[in-house]
């Protein structure tokens, strides 16, 4: 039971997204706000690029010694009274969570934001097993009400306008006066807070994600802006952390470096409002805290990426800068990508997790403009890895037949410059003869993808090489 991937229907998804006016309005927020805010805080920090190098090096070092750090981490967690559960698959992770919930007789579970939670579709699974999950991050709460998955890894409901959120709250919060004023965005936040407050107090188990797992101390760390994560993890009987193997970081010192690039790249903040460190369950002299502390560490295909062409992807710290700066994401939003991880990072990660046969469109739907790599805080070469996926598809004959035959036809000429010269010389003269009067074509055979939206310029006449050689001959 994971989210059904609609990634094979990426083209249809994209078409629908482009025609969705409310979505298009909502998406402007990404293009306008995230980019400008990041630019501003990055410009204020002269050492930002040096920090990116340091962040990349920390992650590379950790990945090179991942087994050792995982062992060290587990030992520390155990020493602090917590428990580490390794989960090879999404199903393993779900069973661990359900087992804990069943043992504690849990009726409701509060949830902080967790992309691993989305990856293993924990909400659907718990509901099917009579445990009610309640998302407490505002954006996650909204998408849960709507029965959707997040469309952005740090802004789950960024695909919705304020009016849509208001409508959803009026539909669901029927216990509140119908004539209440929800004009100001803060009124929506306050209303959600009020509704969620009781849930926090009633929950038996709290699930959060983790931005980092610290090997040195056995600590899990979340960064949030709403404080919901803290209530989620401290009030219930048990705190379950959903993480994956690449969240590992050696020391708190390393975390400090990564935090300096994370919020700046993500939301354009110097720091998130809350940075919460959790080490083990409540100790005897602690005033509060959970009685049990569990960390589920998911693999789900990641260890196979170590040592492969896609290892660098495991450096990702889930800031979302790549999608915030992606012209394709700006155009179609996150849901079009058809699974949990959208944008450029999703275009590389998703094929690793659900198979390139299902997610093949994602690494292809990129102009290779390179903006994602330019802003990535851990310098992941995203375009290069998208190209590596295209190579896998080509090798496995997964690329569409039209693309392959077109490419083979083109290559036959491109590899033989003389043949190319002769053929194009005739073709361009012919095209120019037809097109020069108007200067362009509004329709061309075999090029409807272009001419449906754009005119195509007429060639000027003979090719450059023909003209160049003719001039050379006449001047000799």
């Amino acid at each position, binding site marked *: 039971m994971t989210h059904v991937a609609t990634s094979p229907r990426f083209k249809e998804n994209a078409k629908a997204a482009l025609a969705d006016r409310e979505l298009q309005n909502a998406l402007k927020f990404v293009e306008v706000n995230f980019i400008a805010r990041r630019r501003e805080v990055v410009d204020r920090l002269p050492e930002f690029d040096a920090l990116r190098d340091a962040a990349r090096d920390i992650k590379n070092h950790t990945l090179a010694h991942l087994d050792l750090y995982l062992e060290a981490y587990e030992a520390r967690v155990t020493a602090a009274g917590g428990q580490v559960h390794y989960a090879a698959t999404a199903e393993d992770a779900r069973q661990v969570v359900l087992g804990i919930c069943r043992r504690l007789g849990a009726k409701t579970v509060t949830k902080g934001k967790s992309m691993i939670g989305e990856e293993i579709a924990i909400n659907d699974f718990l509901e099917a097993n009579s445990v009610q999950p309640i998302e407490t991050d505002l954006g996650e709460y909204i998408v849960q009400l709507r029965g959707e998955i997040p469309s952005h890894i740090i802004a789950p409901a960024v695909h919705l306008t304020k009016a849509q959120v208001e409508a959803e709250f009026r539909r669901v919060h029927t216990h509140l006066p119908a004539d209440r004023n929800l004009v100001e965005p803060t009124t929506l936040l306050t209303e959600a807070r009020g509704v969620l407050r009781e849930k926090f107090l009633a929950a038996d188990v709290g699930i959060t994600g983790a931005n980092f797992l610290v090997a040195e101390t056995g600590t899990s760390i979340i960064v949030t802006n709403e404080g919901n994560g803290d209530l989620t993890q401290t009030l219930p009987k048990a705190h379950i952390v959903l993480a994956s193997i690449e969240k590992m970081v050696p020391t708190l010192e390393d975390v400090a470096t990564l935090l300096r690039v994370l919020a700046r790249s993500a939301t354009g903040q110097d720091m998130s409002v809350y940075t919460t460190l959790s080490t083990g369950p409540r100790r005897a002299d602690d005033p509060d805290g959970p009685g049990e502390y569990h960390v589920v560490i998911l693999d789900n295909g990641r260890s196979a990426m170590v040592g492969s062409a896609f290892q660098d992807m495991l450096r990702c710290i889930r800031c979302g800068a790549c999608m915030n700066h992606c012209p394709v994401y700006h155009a179609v939003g996150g849901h079009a990508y058809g699974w949990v991880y959208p944008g450029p990072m999703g275009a590389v990660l998703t094929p690793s997790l659900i198979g390139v046969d299902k997610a093949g469109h994602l690494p292809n739907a990129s102009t290779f403009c390179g903006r994602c790599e330019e802003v990535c805080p851990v310098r992941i070469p995203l375009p290069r890895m998208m190209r590596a996926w295209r190579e896998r598809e080509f090798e496995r004959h997964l690329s569409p037949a039209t693309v392959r035959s077109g490419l083979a036809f083109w290559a036959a000429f491109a590899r033989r410059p003389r043949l190319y010269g002769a053929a194009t010389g005739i073709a361009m003269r012919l095209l120019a003869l037809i097109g020069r009067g108007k200067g362009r074509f509004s329709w061309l055979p075999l090029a409807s993808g272009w001419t449906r939206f754009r005119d*195509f310029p007429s060639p000027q006449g003979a090719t450059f090489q023909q003209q160049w050689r003719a001039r050379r001959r006449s001047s000799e």
Partner: protein
Amino acid sequence: MADQPRRVGLFVTCLVDLIRPSIGFAAAKLLADAGCTVEVPRQACCGQPAFNSGDRATARAIAEQVIDAFASYDYVVAPSGSCAGMLKAHYPELFHGDPNWLPRADAFAAKTFELTSFLVDVLGVTRVDADLEATATYHDACSGLRELSVRVQPRRLLGTVRGLTLEEMRDSDVCCGFGGTFCVKYPDISNAIVEKKAANAAATGAGLLLAGDLGCLMNMAGKLQRDGKAIEVRHVAEVLAGMTSEPAIGAPAHPQTEPRR
């Protein structure tokens, strides 16, 4: 500058070769004016369509042939950031771990440049001899900008064209949506992206849109023309070489009167 003339092999790019040879002649003039001897060995494509479609074997076969064809030149210059990026940044990737070819690919990459970058960064050209009464806006094509750091070079040279004013557009460094085969594989998305670019270019009020890559220029010109926007679109080399008598990209062959601003 060195005393003896530099022998430059012009990699004209397949789009320029086929669609708009005048850009090739403009590039050749700029190079000759800067004291280079320009030659054009027989050539086809740089192989980028194969490389970006995952067909590494074809890309590599084409790369070997290009490296051979340009072996005897001091420099290789292309009027395109995208193709120059392929030659300079990606050819060595294709020969990774090959002790025979990698050194050749590295040496080839080291002598290869995008046109405006070659003029400014290598030859130290500070001004061009050209006039054009116009207000232009400049689009930073992605590969040139991000793979080869082409940003100030074209602007610096355009600043010396007599009569020309440069008006920057919003998001000049954002992709135009061309993306090689992307524009025909995902035409709806490509269209949404170029719509924004066309709107940003039009909002400057400039009568002329310039860039250093013909693929992007064809995409933007095609969109502007489909939308009935009267902005001329040209390659930056045409303006820098003072060769703007040819109709602009996609413009009719014999205009009654050249619209000049």
